[in-house]
């Protein structure tokens, strides 16, 4: 019985989080990966606004979009695009990089 109750609780919690997660609109920003570089490498966004980052990889090789300051990492396979949701940011700059080509693939999100 107790285990059942716990399972129901988890289910409702999950469903609730899912609903809040899909609500609310956000600003859309596009970034292209080409020749192991991000373009634009500097992305200006509104502070305190949710952001939807569309990253498309035009290279023949996979890349991993990674940022410690934004707490995001996601693989973008060759020729594909991914969507990354960012929370409302405080004004400031947040660096990101391509984990597979960290020497060339560098970028910055600037919230203002």
């Amino acid at each position, binding site marked *: 019985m*107790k285990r059942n109750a716990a399972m129901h609780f988890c289910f409702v919690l999950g469903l609730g*989080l*899912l609903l*809040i*997660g*899909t609500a609310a609109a956000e600003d859309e920003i596009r970034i292209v990966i080409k020749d192991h570089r991000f373009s634009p490498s500097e992305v200006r966004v509104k502070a305190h606004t949710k952001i*939807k980052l569309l990253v498309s990889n035009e290279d*023949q*090789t*996979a890349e*991993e979009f990674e940022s*410690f*300051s*934004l*707490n*995001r*990492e*996601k*693989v973008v*396979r*060759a020729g*594909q*695009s*991914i*969507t*990354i*949701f960012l*929370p409302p940011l405080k004004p400031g700059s947040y660096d990101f990089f391509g*984990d*597979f*080509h*960290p*020497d060339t693939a560098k970028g910055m999100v600037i919230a203002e």
Partner: protein
Amino acid sequence: MLGTFIITWRETIEAALIVGILLTYLNKIGQSKQFRFVYWGALWAVIASLIFAGMSDYLSVFFKDIGEDIFEAAILFLATGVLTHMVVWMHHNAREIKGALQHQAELAITKNRLWALATLAFVGVFREGVETVLFLWGFFLQGGGVTSVALPVTGGLLGIGLGVLMTWLFFKGFGHLDLKPFFRVSGFILLFMAAGMLSSGIGKLVTVGLVPPLMEPIWNTSWFLSERSFLGSLVAGIFGYRSSPSLVQALFYLLYFPITLIWLRRQRHDLAQ
């Protein structure tokens, strides 16, 4: 070449340390004969990584964008459940496992549970494995001259080799030290691994917008330990450390412990009756 070397070396150490911790744990509960469970899990993870990375083009519809993250999150949640279940079970049976395990029947039960270790080794290696394969495969696809492929790939493979060797030496070196304090807490360390996997899985769902971060970041500890540093990347890979976590990730991480402890207590209570 140096770049690929460092990247694969780091990924390998993360995966190999997880395997090493699992082996140490087996050793602790007097089951070093069952190491093969862990090795099998790791081996299958390498094979699965190759398949998974290789098939991605054909399965692109499924793995397009959020599909992959949901898949990875599901694997991480599975691993959390399996790991927790195993630690709780081992906790209760520690005495019997150490003592009278000569009985075949009991051994069989234990073996049943040890599949959990294979699952964990699998998840630990698979996570880093897919990335490593995709990364190295990129150099083949890039083409160009033979040297432009051979050098980075050689660097990458050397990185994997050195990573395994270093981790092996690390745990081998432990054999000569008095590790009683570590053994005492190794069950506890597994729980931290489980909490890390749980919170990483939640992080994947936050990234694709399926779970709200609630508040993000709740703090920034990169001044203390950055994931950019070697130590930071290991702590992140094994225990799920994040310098700028979201509230929902931190909540799941922190709530995992009291919930597991309550489960532990209730099981003890059930056994007592």
